[in-house]
């Protein structure tokens, strides 16, 4: 077991994890943050995306021990039912979630983009979510949902 210290959604968590434990397993199974999903566990679908130090990464490919001392943000950390992040509201308004399974990763990826570039073009949004698979929507409503919360459109 390896000791790790993570800041998850603003709270510091000290854990002992086996070295082979991935961050995906840690957030879902050790911390109970099941908003982070998984569709392949091999880095091929994007559903497990979380933010590490503000940057979207695939938690299924990240060893928890390698994330020690990092700031991790999961979908639970950016808004709630009562105080949703503008993206969380926008996804509903634009029908950008159908089954909802890719949605947490999609929203986090979009949030990281908007934090860096508050006025991305549609092309930039598409490039940013090109590692996130969605099987339901055909992506177009997702592009609209993200475009609606750019600085320009707010």
């Amino acid at each position, binding site marked *: 077991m390896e000791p790790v210290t993570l800041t998850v959604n603003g709270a510091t968590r000290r854990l002992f994890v086996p070295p082979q434990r991935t961050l995906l397993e840690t957030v879902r199974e050790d911390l109970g943050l099941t908003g982070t999903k998984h569709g392949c566990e091999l880095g091929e679908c994007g559903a497990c995306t979380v933010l590490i130090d503000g940057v979207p990464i695939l938690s299924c490919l990240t060893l928890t021990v390698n994330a020690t001392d990092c700031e991790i943000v999961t979908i639970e950390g950016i808004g709630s039912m009562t105080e949703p992040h503008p993206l969380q509201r926008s*996804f509903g308004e634009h029908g950008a979630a159908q089954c909802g399974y890719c949605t947490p990763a999609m929203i986090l990826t979009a949030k990281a983009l908007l934090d860096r570039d508050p006025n991305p073009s549609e092309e930039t949004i598409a490039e940013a979510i090109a590692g996130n698979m969605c099987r339901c929507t055909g992506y177009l409503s997702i592009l609209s949902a993200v475009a609606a919360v750019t600085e320009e459109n707010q």
Partner: protein
Amino acid sequence: MRSEPHLGIVGRAAPRVDALAQATGRVKYLDDLSYSGMLHGKILRSTEAHARIVAVDTSAAKALPGVHGILTGEDLPVAFGLLPVSQDEHALAVDKVRHIGDPIAAVAAEHPDIAQRAMELIEVTYESLPVVTTMTEAVETTEEPIHGDGPRNNRDREISLEFGDVDAGFDIAYHIREDVFFYQGNNHAALEAHGALGVVEDDGRLHVFSSTQVPHYLHRILAKVLEMPESRIRVTATPTGGGFGAKTDVFSHELVAGQMALITGRPVKFVLTREEVFYAHRGRHPVLMWVKTGFTSDGRITAMSFRTFIDGGAYGSYGAASLLYTGQLQTITYRIPAYRFEGVRLFTNKPACGPKRGHGTPQPRFGLEVHLDKAADDLGLDPVTIRKRNLVSPNTVTVNHLRITSCGLTECIDRVVADSGYLDKRRHLPQGHGIGFAIGAYMSGAGLPIYFNDMPQSEVMIKVDRGGGVTVYSMAADCGQGSTTMLATVVGEALGLDPSDLVVITADTDLTPVDLGSYSSRVTFMAGNAALEAALKLTDLVLTAIADELDIDQDAVEIGHGVVVAGDREIPWAEAARIAEARWGLLVTTGTYKPPKDIKGDYRGAGVGPSPAYSYSACVADVKCDPETGHVSVERVWLAHDVGRAINPLLVRGQIEGSVHMALGEVLMEEQTFRGALHSGPSLLDYKIPTVLEMPRVESIIVESIDAEGPFGAKEVGQGPLLPVIPAVVNAVHDALGIRLDAIPLRPDKVLAALDDLERGGPGRYGPTDLPDYTFRSPLRVDPPPEAVTV
């Protein structure tokens, strides 16, 4: 049932009722559930494509500390299958394995790593058997059939039907055209892998949670295989992370999760890996098809003969229905005066195929629509004209006894053709740039239930509490298509309440009355109608009570937004509900839906194809092709869909766009192929789903034909819009490059092969030419209904 919406709740583009729960990560999918003391299950799967199981030695696995349960085939010996005619599966292999990935044994352990290790310790002794991987082999091989031991051994189902005098139709034809097409199989690739969790509850009953689209069928099959009464089992369908038909069958892991919970007394969870999802499969059947059509000189169809060979994989699954669907729905778009359909489903040593969005109809629709495009060329007609000359009319009956009611097909065609400028662009775009057109149609639910019974196909219950809160109970499982929102909207419109203020309890066999499941695009039509009936009964109770209370005529009382309006008085809903409860007692109403009986013919096979209403679509696709690389990119898609009425246009548009995405995957890149019996790449890297970068602009056009029997006039939208996209793209590639791709997906190497053929002076075609050497039995002759147009 038809009812006019007047409050604007139906017809409003509103978010899903669970939108915020989804966007905040609060929705609990199957793998998000956990119990203290829960065990983790793994299934050992066959590494042989076809073998007799000589022995399964689980002793080393049993001895591993932390292992609590092991199951093999002999523990669950009862055969099952979703269709009563296909009881050919076992929860775990008994005697034989039939494809790589066939389940053999299951383990449950304290930790996933222990389960993994235990699984690795199980030793299976196989006796290899001859392997059949192609349809030709399946037809020709006589030794060791995959199932049974009859003379036509690897044949699962065969159908041979003739409606009207087909030969006479060909005799009078001015022009006859024949084509052979191939549509490769593919997988649903829902992002969430399947999973199930079994728990023995405090009352000793078994509770199985599953990411299923069909909790009712799972309930029945659990009872059968576990040999327990249904009353001792509760099934809860968790919200599925995508279905598309993948989760409409019952699978090994669901049965094993139940049994494992019973034998260990502890909760046990099984979640498939992505590799296992490709082995569980039940995806689109590969279909090889031949179509022959006779035309008059002005392009009217005189007769059609359609033949399909479908590669079923190792089990029956829904295949008997899939096979019929490859032949039955050609007649719901075109008036075909005489029609022959012959089809055979063959077993091969590959994962079983089953239903995927459009179930059995995208393949023949592709063939038919490309065939018509070619026939139009032959006859010097444009592709729109040839179709319009043959369109079915509303309120008619087809030659194979299907009842057509509302039909917005003409409007769909006119809209996409006009908006895209199809007729002006066709043949006038620069080389490499093309435009294509096609149409399609689908069912709003199957006319018959999967197992024979006379009960309703959908039942809904509504209960009002003393605060005026309304709870809707339905077994309809939301697989992302929005059925929960649909139920809330239909009931909301009837009661004047905002859909987000209703509680909708779904997909739980203890709590909700039966709905057969989320397949066949049946839920809006059937559960929607049942919900509307229940809501209207409730409305009636409330309005009567208010009229009695105020001593006024009931006609003077009506539902308003959150109120009951009685003359110039507005009574808040909660108060009205209390008055009604005082008048009637507990406010519970129910509604049911059963399709009309007279929508089907009376012949073997007539059960597949009838639907209370058909949706219609038309599509124009604009494509660019690189003649040097063979790369095809779809630039823009116009898709008009006759949804009857859009209960929620936002969700309707979402289904259209999602259907376009899935169709583009199928026509451009997705294929479940094999090297021998080995899957070519059971991963989301090797199985290519389009990313956002492959997605074109989509112009969604909603057409409302207001169906007389649909809830508020609504019909389906979840599957139909996929159908015309595929042939529209293929026809567009012809417009772009002058080549005919009669086999899909349109891999760039195939595009180049067709271009090479053109360069060598050939017809510029890539596709199959031969059919397996197979003799169909002579067709069952069915007289067309008297009202059908015949030869």
